[in-house]
């Protein structure tokens, strides 16, 4: 019932401020959403989802949903909308050359994220600083975004692009699960993301994500005792921790250790010294923390706190966010104490 209330916007709109408001909205073409569509229809359907018409499939992805300044579209639109409930997507201007959409301000891709697989699962760690051409836009952003219970994605690049594509990926994985009645593997999710990002290659879209997940393997029906052994053998190959790096330039790599972002070289040097398959969970957490700490120390675009996520066969768990400046003071104190002991 709650959904019905939300979807029946016409009641809301009859009471709302002005009647010019909807047409003005359409004239401005602020994009398609539920609210602008409804005043033009009298349907009693409960669910008004936006179903994009097929024309957008012919458009270049960079033209999709772009705001146009031409006014002749709006008249055609008003006529059309008496028939259909949904504002039409604009037909694209003749695309002689693909023009990149200009960014509102220059963005830098500063971050330190890392992920590695070990015997206890996958560990993902990231800093929390969002920078924007030399200033810290947000000191407490979240760069590790959970996608579903057994898959987590670290993000690097443009924050908005990463947030959007993470949501699109979650949606597509959920649809896959509903349609095919099984969970898509981490490799499959990585391939899906890579293929979705491919049309945007050459544009200013920048997403560099590592997908960290646990593959459950095949769920077979009961076998005999001999079969059970074979099952275990098969499960060893198909299930377990998985780590994939996906980048908007088209790279898709499977591996056991990745670090992405402007602070990644600093993190790599710490991780390469200590990451082994046989680490315990505590050892792995401490080396991940140390790597992010060192990277945030040296890299101007990384800093503030560190987030750590641990993915196992039972799902992901999140460690409490830790402020790294405390760690800096603790280390300084430790060094001073050591120096005093050496001198004494």
């Amino acid at each position: 019932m709650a959904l019905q209330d939300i979807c029946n916007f016409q009641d809301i709109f009859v009471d709302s401020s002005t009647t010019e408001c909807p047409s003005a909205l359409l004239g401005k073409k602020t994009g398609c959403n539920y609210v602008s569509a409804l005043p033009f229809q009298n349907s009693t359907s409960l669910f008004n989802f936006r179903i994009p018409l097929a024309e957008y499939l012919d458009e270049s992805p960079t033209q999709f949903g772009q705001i146009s300044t031409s006014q002749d579209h709006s008249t055609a639109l008003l006529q059309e909308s008496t028939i259909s409930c949904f504002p039409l997507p604009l037909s694209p201007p003749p695309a002689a050359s693909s023009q990149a959409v200009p960014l509102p301000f220059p963005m830098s891709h500063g971050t330190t994220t890392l992920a590695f697989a070990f015997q206890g699962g996958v560990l993902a760690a990231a800093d929390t600083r969002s920078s924007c051409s030399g200033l810290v836009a947000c000191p407490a952003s979240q760069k590790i975004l959970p996608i579903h219970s057994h898959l987590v994605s670290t993000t690097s690049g443009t924050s908005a692009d990463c947030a959007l594509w993470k949501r699109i990926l979650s949606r597509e994985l959920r649809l896959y699960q509903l349609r095919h009645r099984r969970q898509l593997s981490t490799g499959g999710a990585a391939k899906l993301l890579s293929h979705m990002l491919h049309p945007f290659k050459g544009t200013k879209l920048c997403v560099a994500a590592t997908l960290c997940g646990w593959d459950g393997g095949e769920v077979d029906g009961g076998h005999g005792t001999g079969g059970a052994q074979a099952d275990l053998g098969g499960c060893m190959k198909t299930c377990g921790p998985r780590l994939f790096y996906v980048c908007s330039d088209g790279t898709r790599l499977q591996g056991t250790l990745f670090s992405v972002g402007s602070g990644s070289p600093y993190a790599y040097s710490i991780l390469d010294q200590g990451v082994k398959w046989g680490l315990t969970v505590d050892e792995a957490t401490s080396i991940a923390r140390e790597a992010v700490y060192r990277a945030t120390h040296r890299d101007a675009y990384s800093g503030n706190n560190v987030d750590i996520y641990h993915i196992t066969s039972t799902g992901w768990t999140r460690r409490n966010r830790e402020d790294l400046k405390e760690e800096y003071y603790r280390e300084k104190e430790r060094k001073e104490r050591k120096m005093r002991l050496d001198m004494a």
Partner: protein
Amino acid sequence: MEYLIGIQGPDFVLVAADNVAASSIIQMKHDYDKMFKLSEKILLLCVGEAGDTVQFAEYIQKNVQLYKMRNGYELSPSAAANFTRKNLADYLRSRTPYHVNLLLAGYDDTDGPGLFYMDYLSSLAKAPFAAHGYGAFLTLSILDRYYRPDLTRDEAVDLLKKCAEELNKRFILNLPSFTVRLIDKEGIRDLEKITLGTK
């Protein structure tokens, strides 16, 4: 940055590729395989721009498989090479050209072994030996000097090792290991990886 090499013998083709997947100055992967199996006796080695390589190679791979499913027999290496070149050429003057350099190596039951060199401008040449990448500048003259059309398999592997050692000595970038594969009438076989320590 990346390196591909192929050597054709009287009844085999030997191919090798480096194993580094790099992103600006960082080696993201040390064991990356740049060879794509198109069919039982055809390998496509692909280097170039990051996403284009995998996308293009998989596209060719799936189309070759589709041909086999539709017609019941496989494309010959020469046909596969020409198909690949045609696709490169079609995309060359579009908005999204594929920037990839390729070596296609295969064994045809009627024509014997074949090595085809293709580059991002969609040129195609059947060659007895070929190499791609900056490493090619250093190793092509070694191949010119020591290549003979009647090389045995072992001699070809030795020639490959000579090239790898030269790269290790003079090439500014570190390419520590190479995947090596051999194609003959039996099919595609994995040979031992060539790994070099720092000299």
